[in-house]
């Protein structure tokens, strides 16, 4: 892998710098902000709260709703604020990727609303959105079986690489976003755009597992330091 370099000088299995923060919004029940290279995503979680209209509620479990949305200024060309088919699809797959990790039967007849806002898009926005949304759910105190960590892998110039930039995404032969619960070894999202042989698929998936593990550690550290800071503040106030 040593000779091969990517446009931004990274090695095939090298992630971009990642920044994570929770509790960034005042009014939301949970919130998080994730930066992965040039990709910047802000997530708010509201709920569990009453469903409107009521008939959408389920008698034995909460429902999860999700809106993935790109700000008009997030893309190279200005994006119209009206949701595209891509945004509608991603809202659905992000919802599904997270819903199966939440203990929904604890909150019958309620909704958990997840708002993923892409502030700047430079590849991997749905993955950064899932990573951030999982943090925001944790911050909202919603019981989950585990954190979800997500990262895209892909094939670019014949090589399997991790964490594609927007430019790599446009040029690549295949792009495969993956979301995992790393410690439970469960996939909660996998999509493939492009073509891979079964062997390439395995190589790519293993690379995604490695990346998600790393991201999962960052998520845990972020939550840990957030709660320690709060503990300090509480102690200080006392």
């Amino acid at each position, binding site marked *: 892998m040593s000779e091969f370099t990517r446009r931004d000088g990274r090695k095939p299995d090298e992630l971009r710098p990642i920044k994570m923060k929770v509790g960034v919004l005042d009014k939301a029940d949970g919130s998080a902000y994730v930066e992965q290279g040039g990709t910047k995503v802000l997530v708010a979680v509201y709920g569990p709260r009453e469903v409107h209209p009521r008939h*959408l509620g389920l008698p034995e479990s909460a429902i999860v709703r999700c809106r993935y949305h790109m700000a008009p200024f997030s893309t190279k060309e200005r994006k119209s604020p009206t949701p595209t*088919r*891509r945004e*509608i*699809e991603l*809202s*659905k*797959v992000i919802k*599904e990727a997270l819903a*199966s*990790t939440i203990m929904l039967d604890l909150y019958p007849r309620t909704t958990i609303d997840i708002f993923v806002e892409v502030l700047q898009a430079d590849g991997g926005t749905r993955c950064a959105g899932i990573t951030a949304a999982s943090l925001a759910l944790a911050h909202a105190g919603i019981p989950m079986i585990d954190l979800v960590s997500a990262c895209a892998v892909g094939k670019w110039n014949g090589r399997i690489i991790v964490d594609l930039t927007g430019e790599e995404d446009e040029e690549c032969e*295949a792009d*495969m976003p993956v979301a995992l*619960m790393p410690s439970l*070894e*469960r*996939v*909660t*999202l*996998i*999509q*493939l*755009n*492009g*073509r*891979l*042989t*079964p062997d390439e*698929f*395995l190589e790519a*998936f293993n690379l995604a*597992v490695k990346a998600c593990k790393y991201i999962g550690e960052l998520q845990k550290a972020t939550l840990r330091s957030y709660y320690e800071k709060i503990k300090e503040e509480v102690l200080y106030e006392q």
Partner: protein
Amino acid sequence: MSSRLVIPELTKRRIRELASQRRRIDKRGLAEFRTVFIERGIIPQADGSALVHIGNTKAIAGIKIDLGQPYPDMPNAGVLAVNVELMPLASPTFEPGPPDERAVEVARIVDRAIREGRMIDLEELVITPGREVYVIFVDTYLVDHDGNMIDACVLASVAALLDATMRKAIVSEGRARLIDERSPLPIRHYPLTATICRIGETLIVDPILEEEETAEARITIGFDEEDRICMIQHSIGMLRYSELYQAINISREAVSRLRKELCKVFPNAG
């Protein structure tokens, strides 16, 4: 949003029990598609069309080919526009109105299977680069919904494209017009998909409606005729890593059996 179908808890339990014994409620093998029926050319007025049945699930696809402008960022490629509608005819849970998130998801899957599976050589569809190209509209209608709408819609769309012919374009004074001479589309590959559900620890192919509603996870995997994976959509639930690997293998075999059905109507498709 459309209402959800309610499957009796008894049926679900039965399906789960059977699955734990690696059996199915309709006695099919775990990796077996239902009876597949493909009829081409059912809408003679369209440029291509097909009706497919997968068991009781039915989809109709129609192709219209027009002249139009290329996308500004792809001046050297024809335009492919895929639209999927879950007709209110097809199910008590579907409602009239603009496509909901399920229809959008299926349309995006069909689009990706065709586009990323390189089914059509879009560069062959350019008339005047940056100015005029062929626009291929794929309109796919689910008309009867008894589970596995994704594979039915992909199959109908692919069959309609294989059935389609396009009119020749004559350029005069810088503008093209279409004449009556017709040729097939520049087809390069033949993507097909198989959808797999996990019920308990058992993976099954081509779920019927009751199985779909019972399943804990669902994934659709597409292959081209050279067994390359050309589309994955994990729609619902979670999978162990080993289940994912297993799903890849099962779906590959299921697709190659489905391809045999397609080849009965379109001998080149394999």
